[in-house]
């Protein structure tokens, strides 16, 4: 057991990738074997991720090295044939938070996919691709190496594009997948160029060591260019306006469980943005300018996202526009904290809370927006339409789906006591200290979100029953079970916010704010 715990950083990435390869071998033995291997791969990786997160939260940051016996070992491992290759995984409280989000959401999405995709052909490709997407997200969150981050970013991009295009859908899904692939490749190339500039300048790829070196050597023009080349693609990958146009196409055309986990993949990009902004460059760069830049992206994302959602009548497209809007909240809290990072008093008074609120919203968003995608997918699964104008009265025949969707809708609209209210409350309060106007914009956006989901809920579940859907019944147990898991989490996160805040979010915010703790020399730790 200790060995498993010791190697959990390797297992979170290794297990899904191994299961993906194994699936290609065992696919010929039938659907049941395929489903068991798929779900076991996801569930075991989630267990490893949860145990790693627990270890980090109890004992402190974990550093795990591939290619050498310990992080403090000589640069050239004796068994590497003289090649100085090694990869370091570095998981602190911020990484632990993301691991938990990915672990819980991936299990729910995988459970749902087992039934929702059973009628689709090509499952021998769907399952391995989903596993690669999950493994890629874990890798992005756990790695402490910039090039390795790029590799995992590419794995998630390719797997995400293929999964989006999986159903083809008269070419619409294929087009959405292609858009995602092109945008991700552009972003990946930009990121790689930034990494190349830093490598050429400092001969380092390890984020902690690079952070310390930049802090010492100063932030020059090459660093400014590298920072822009890395931050902008990650902002695009998380769906920040005005680089968000891929988001409604991709999320709305992907199968529901893929949409739910693509959200987490986007959150991993947002985590990467936070990591690069706070831990790699931190106070070396002009934080007030970059923070203000992030705040502007946040306001645009919140407002344009929600106003674009209101006129939509394709339910998944509507939720996708809300995903853009919700990303704005996360960028807002982080941007405010980044903008005041140079002033310890402001960080203490409201910056830390703003970042914690942003991280809280990230966690909640992955759960409730994932839930909304799954519930919308359940309605489409039964009715065969995604057009809200053609739905109605489904609450009588799909009460479980209605209840789960209701929980998600209340949470995204920030209605107490759901989780969305708690995180928005922290954001409103902390951002108000920076600029009351920004806080007011966030509240107005929340009001518009409520209006939008009143429309969706009414159109799907209320009103007279349509004769065409009189025989429709609720979705199979695996599908509503997956939704129920996320619905319960949404309620619990809302009812006990302080447990999450004290145990998870404030340590995660501190891990990002305290650059020195991240960049301290290797050695000592695992």
């Amino acid at each position: 057991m200790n060995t498993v715990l010791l190697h959990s950083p390797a297992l979170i990435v290794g297990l899904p990738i191994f299961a993906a390869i194994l699936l290609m071998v065992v696919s010929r033995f039938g659907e049941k074997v395929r489903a068991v291997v798929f779900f076991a791969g996801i569930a075991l990786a989630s267990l490893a991720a949860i145990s790693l997160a627990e270890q980090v939260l109890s004992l402190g940051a974990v550093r795990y090295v591939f290619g050498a016996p310990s992080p403090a070992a000589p640069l050239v491992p004796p068994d590497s044939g003289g090649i100085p290759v090694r990869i370091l995984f570095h998981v602190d409280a911020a990484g632990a938070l993301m691991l938990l989000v990915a672990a819980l959401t991936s299990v729910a999405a995988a459970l749902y996919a087992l039934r929702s995709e059973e009628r689709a052909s090509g499952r021998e490709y769907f399952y391995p691709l989903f596993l690669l997407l999950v493994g890629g997200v874990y890798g992005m969150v756990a790695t402490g190496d910039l090039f390795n981050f790029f590799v995992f970013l590419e794995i998630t991009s390719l797997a995400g594009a293929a999964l989006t295009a999986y159903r083809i859908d008269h070419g619409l899904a294929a087009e959405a997948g292609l858009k995602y692939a092109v945008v991700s490749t552009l972003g990946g190339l930009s990121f790689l160029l930034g990494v190349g500039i830093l490598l050429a300048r400092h001969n380092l790829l390890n984020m902690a060591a690079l952070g310390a070196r930049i802090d010492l050597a100063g932030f020059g023009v090459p660093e400014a260019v590298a920072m822009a080349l890395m931050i902008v693609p990650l902002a695009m990958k998380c769906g920040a306006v005005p680089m968000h146009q891929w988001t409604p196409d991709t999320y709305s055309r992907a199968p529901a469980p893929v949409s739910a986990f693509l959200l987490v993949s986007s959150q991993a990009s947002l985590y990467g943005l936070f990591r690069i902004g706070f831990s790699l460059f931190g106070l070396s760069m002009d934080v007030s300018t970059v923070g203000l830049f992030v705040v502007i992206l946040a306001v645009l994302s919140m407002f344009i996202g929600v106003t674009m959602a209101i006129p939509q009548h394709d339910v998944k497209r509507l939720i996708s526009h809300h995903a853009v809007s919700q990303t704005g909240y996360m960028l807002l809290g982080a941007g405010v904290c980044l903008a005041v990072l140079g002033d310890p008093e402001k960080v203490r008074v409201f910056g830390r809370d703003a970042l914690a609120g942003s991280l809280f919203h990230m966690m909640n968003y992955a759960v409730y927006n994932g839930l909304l995608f799954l519930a919308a997918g359940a309605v489409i699964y039964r009715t065969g339409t995604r057009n809200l104008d053609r739905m109605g009265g489904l609450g009588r025949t799909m009460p479980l789906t209605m209840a789960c969707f209701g929980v998600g809708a209340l949470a995204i609209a920030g209605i107490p006591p759901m989780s969305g209210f708690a995180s928005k409350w922290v954001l409103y309060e902390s951002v108000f200290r920076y600029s009351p106007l920004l806080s007011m914009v966030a509240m107005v956006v929340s009001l518009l979100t409520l209006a939008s989901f009143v429309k969706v809920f009414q159109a799907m579940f209320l009103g007279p029953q349509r004769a065409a859907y009189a025989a429709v019944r609720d979705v199979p147990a695996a599908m509503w079970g997956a939704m129920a898991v996320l619905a319960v989490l949404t309620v619990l996160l809302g009812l006990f916010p302080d447990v999450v805040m004290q145990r998870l979010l404030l340590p995660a915010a501190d891990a990002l704010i305290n650059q020195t703790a991240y960049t301290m020399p290797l050695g000592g730790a695992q």
Partner: protein
Amino acid sequence: MKAPFVMMAMLETTHGGWSPLVWLVVFAAACGVALWIRAIGRGDSRTGGASQKPFLSGNDLADPEDARVAASNMYWGFTHALRVYYRRVMAFHSGSLADSILWFLVVLAMLLLAGRVA
């Protein structure tokens, strides 16, 4: 002294706090008052009659399925009032990959310039 359960549910921030459990108690009390008001109303108001017939703007409907406002029309007033904004923002969401790449380059250039000016 507060009970541990209540403490677990109390979110304390630098400037205030939020207690979902207190909110739930108040919400339950409000629901109780609403139910009490409903209980003291007329008992015969729900039995048959025109009050139960679906209608739209005072007109009888032949088919109850028509007794709904389509989702696309629900916020017509809002979108119509903001039609200038919506015309521009819809055009901005062209779905063209070239536009996505262009906006990526614009934002990249803006951040580079912002860094340079700063």
